[in-house]
């Protein structure tokens, strides 16, 4: 068992998938998914040491992301089987291959420890997901891909510069260790603070672009809404986590270097801005997939905010991170059902979902309640801790803005969801719902419910490990 195997395996199958016809390529997705899930679980249980230490490392936050990615990909791949059957995609081999490469690169992000390797992996996620967004080959999807690739590449280039600045900080501080997050965290005090701060700024803006923090979020609604739903689910569900991982690890160095206040404040500001931006566009949204995309921006804002305030907030942020992945991907998959059923992305052309697609409705509304922070879904606990943490750290006005903008987001979101679910439009006919395009969502939601009440001890300890590593906790 080698750590690197986890991302090499999907990489290989991905390469193969490019050359396979659709009949063979399609089952490859869930197969790889299962295999990957098995590997991830083994990784979790055994925690082996990597073949290239210094480049790769198994960290608690990485494990958390990895297991989420794995689970999600597996469920999404099952959904994708149904989705590909229902919708017409011209070159499916590219879709399949890109999905697998995407999985591989995301896995690599979670396992990488070297700053540059991390950057390479994150940039690779951009590249491997670009074809996914362009799947439908429409003008709109072309535009979305163009913006996605260009904005993200520019943003991530900033992160590269930031990474370089870290090495400069090392040089000035005369630190001679591998350029890996773990080594740097240990020696953070010796790094030059000025250059470290500059590096953090660049890395935050860079990976923040990828994560969807306002004002660098601009590509996100376009990309997430134009991609086919299984891809959107992955983009929103886990890709954002990967970018967050980069910020998280850098923040770890900052905290270790005693610059936690600086980085925390910046994270909080960006978090709040993201929530406000999301609120702005959710309020009068006309397309439901864009609405979900903005909701992702909101949640990334929440997570950034939580990470920024520290203390219980970090714990809350990590909970939000996990649950947001589960729930948002479920929502995007559900939006795929709606898209297939109604054939439109416009909110006002939908309606009566509760009557016409009851099963989809349950998944959709459950997802909505979950993402809005209602129990028994996990985001509730996450948001609770973030709010408590914000008050604990004395950021009263920030907490006020946070709560206010969350309320606005909720008002907007609820309005659209009410329209989609209940509005009485002309037709009341049932729309056929396929079983295999329902239960992946249910599984995701139920996982979130489950994790809201009981967590395996190892999961809890891993989260706490990650939380304490950036100075969070109770």
């Amino acid at each position, binding site marked *: 068992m080698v750590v690197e195997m986890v991302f090499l395996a999907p990489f290989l199958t991905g390469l193969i998938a490019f050359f396979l016809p659709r009949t063979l390529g399609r089952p490859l997705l869930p197969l790889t998914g299962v295999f990957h899930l098995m590997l991830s679980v083994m990784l979790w249980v055994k925690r082996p040491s990597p073949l290239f230490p210094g480049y790769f490392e198994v960290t608690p936050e990485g494990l958390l992301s990895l297991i989420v990615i794995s689970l999600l990909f597996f469920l999404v791949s099952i959904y994708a089987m149904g989705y590909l059957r229902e919708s017409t995609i011209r070159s499916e081999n590219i879709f399949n291959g890109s999905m697998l490469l995407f999985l591989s690169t995301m896995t690599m992000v979670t396992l990488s420890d070297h700053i540059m390797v991390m950057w390479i992996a994150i940039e690779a996620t951009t590249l491997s997901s670009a074809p996914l967004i362009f799947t439908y080959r429409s003008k709109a999807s072309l535009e979305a891909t163009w*913006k996605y690739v260009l904005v993200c590449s520019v943003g991530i280039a900033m992160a590269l510069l930031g990474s370089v600045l870290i090495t400069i900080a090392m040089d000035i501080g005369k630190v001679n260790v591998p350029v890996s997050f773990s080594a740097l965290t240990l020696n953070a005090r010796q790094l030059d603070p000025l250059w470290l701060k500059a590096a953090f700024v660049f890395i935050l803006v860079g990976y923040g*672009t990828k994560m969807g923090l306002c*004002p660098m979020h601009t590509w996100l609604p376009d990309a997430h809404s134009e991609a086919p739903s299984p891809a959107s689910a992955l983009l929103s569900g886990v890709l954002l986590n990967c970018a967050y991982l980069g910020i998280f690890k850098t923040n770890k160095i900052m905290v270790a270097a005693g610059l936690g206040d600086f980085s925390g404040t910046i994270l909080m500001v960006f978090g709040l801005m993201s929530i406000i*931006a999301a609120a702005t*566009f959710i309020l009068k949204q006309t397309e439901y997939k864009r609405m979900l995309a903005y909701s992702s921006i909101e949640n990334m804002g929440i997570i950034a905010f939580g990470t920024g305030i520290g203390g219980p907030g970090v714990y809350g942020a990590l909970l939000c991170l996990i649950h947001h992945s589960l729930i948002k991907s479920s929502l995007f998959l559900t939006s795929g059902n709606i898209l297939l059923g109604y054939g439109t992305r416009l909110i006002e052309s939908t309606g009566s979902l509760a009557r016409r697609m009851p099963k989809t409705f349950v998944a959709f509304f459950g997802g909505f309640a979950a993402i809005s922070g209602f129990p028994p879904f996990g985001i*509730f606990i996450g948001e609770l801790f973030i709010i408590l943490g914000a008050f604990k750290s004395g950021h009263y006005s920030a907490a006020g803005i946070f709560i206010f903008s969350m309320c606005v987001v909720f008002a907007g979101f609820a309005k659209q969801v*009410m329209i989609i679910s209940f*509005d*009485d439009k002309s037709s009341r006919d049932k729309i056929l719902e396929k079983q295999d395009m329902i239960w992946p969502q249910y599984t995701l939601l139920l996982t979130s419910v489950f994790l809201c009440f009981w967590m395996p001890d190892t999961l809890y300890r891993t989260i706490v490990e990650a939380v304490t590593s950036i100075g969070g906790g109770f």
Partner: protein
Amino acid sequence: MNLFYMSFLILFSGGILALVGQRNFALMKMLSVVSLATGCLSGLIASAQALWQEKVFQFSFTYLNHFELSYKIDSLSAFFLVVIFLISMIAVIYSYHYMDHSENALATSVHYFFFSLLIISMALVVTADNIITFMLSWEIMSLSSFFLVIFDYGKAENRKAGYLYFIFSHIGAMFIFAAFGVVYGYTSQFGFNGMAGLPDTVKMIVFVLAFIGFGSKAGVFPFHVWLPHAHPAAPSHISAVMSGVMIKTGIYGILRVYSLLDYHVSVLGMIVLVAGVISGILGVVYALGQHDLKRLLAYSSVENVGIILIGIGIGMIGVATGNPLMAILGFSGGLLHVLNHSIFKSLLFMGAGMVLHKTGTRAIDRLGGLLKRMRITGATFLIGSLAISGLPPFNGFVGEFFIYLGAFNGTLFGNTAFVAGVLAVVSLAVIGGLALACFTKVMGVVFQGEPRSRAAADKDETGNTMLFAMMILASFCIIIGVLPGIFIQMTLKGLSSVSMGYGRIPLEPFIQMTENITLAAVVFLMVLLVLLAMRTLAYRGKPVGRKGTWGCGFTQPTPKMQYTGSSYSASIVEFFRPVAPFQEHHPPVEGRFPEKTIYHSRIDDIAERHMTTIIVRPVMWMFDRLRWIQHGDIHLYIGYIFLAIVVLLFFV
């Protein structure tokens, strides 16, 4: 103890059964009604025991490996548990015949599921003993009740109601989050215990935040806007539970926070009192102006929450000014009114449900004369109306009587207590008068006179469980009204866990007061009996005829000529015009042979009206100003990245 677990288990299984058994409608309904009712009954017994013995139960579970879900049933919780389980049980019984649309089996079973969740979560809210537990139960309560509100989502107004309710409950919850956040910020523990040790200004902030949060659930003006929309939208027994019980969890929250903070200054009491006065008076004025039976009842809930808050406010000021008698009278009056209101309000909603069920309309001015065929409904509704108007010898009077005594007691003392007392007394009097007007209107227009439309004509009452439920509640109204002793003891026991610094409350003086009420009520009933006997004597052998109503010389009366609800309330509403803008719409009657004309009137809720202009529009405007950032131009998108870096580099 085990009984509590058992009742939760039965309740939950009832909900699950409903979901599972939706294919067989009759069986599903039977099973879930029986199990929900049994669950409520066992919970009722358990909580009544807990209240009576004044024992404190505590239990907790590990939650998410590190935290605790802890529950504590002290006497205050037990008091509210009694109310919750009692009313829920009766509402469940009522629902058996009310939910009789078998073609709607799926919706019905889902409704039972969420109903069971609602009961459970309400019970958990009043027993929760730390922040996480409380918020968890609170949010589940909001969510499950939301689903009950949009039960009939086919109607646009119900969807609007559900939306409003959703938003308000979320925002309210956020205020409570904030209150607890402040607490946590100072105590760094999730338990409630440290709250008494907060600095004074912080206590003030916490209380105000919590008051807004809980007030929005309780329906305190001006946070009540959702209430008149949501309560009518739900099925009637759910309206009964929501109006009767669920909004009381807000009251519970206020009391609990007050008790935990252990902060006795008259300012807090004044806040509560003034909020109560405003909700009370405006609630009933708006109720008076409604044309929709269930909306009217919903506004009347706002009024009664106002009365409860007046009681609590008097109690708080009593404590703050060192005036134990005033305090206990106020608190116990308020608590008793919690019980009373839950009884008569659910009774009235059930009556309204029967009317709606049979006639298919909630419009007051389309009804009339129902009493002739719906005898039990009418009689119980009459009792409910008398009780809600606070008239003796019914239960509504008892609670108000205690609040009056407390308020009058307050007038004996220094400035704050005096002002509070006078304010409470006068406003209670006004509220009483208005409530009387309001419910004579309902009785008179809906149940008496002649049917105003075909919908109301010749409608019988059917559904034994519905009638049974109403009769039970009506008898409670009389029992509490005549024999309030035991119930006052309940409230006093409930109060014993509210920290006022008095130690044990002596029961005797208060029992004495209830005995007076009993005496007076018995005297009244005796006189009534004598008079009835005399009346029978007076009519013995006398000719008794029946004829049409004398039309003062007009020979062709029609039911349309009757005084309508709108005309009945017009002059009173007119008096309150500044706070209840009254709008009329009727095309002028023109020409020698005028066309048919219409008349339409409504009164606006100023909170609702100004909510749009003061909050919603500015917020929308503000956010609209931000919309340009997503303009689609990639050059500027890249510019944002650049800008972000440049700005941040200034702070390095």
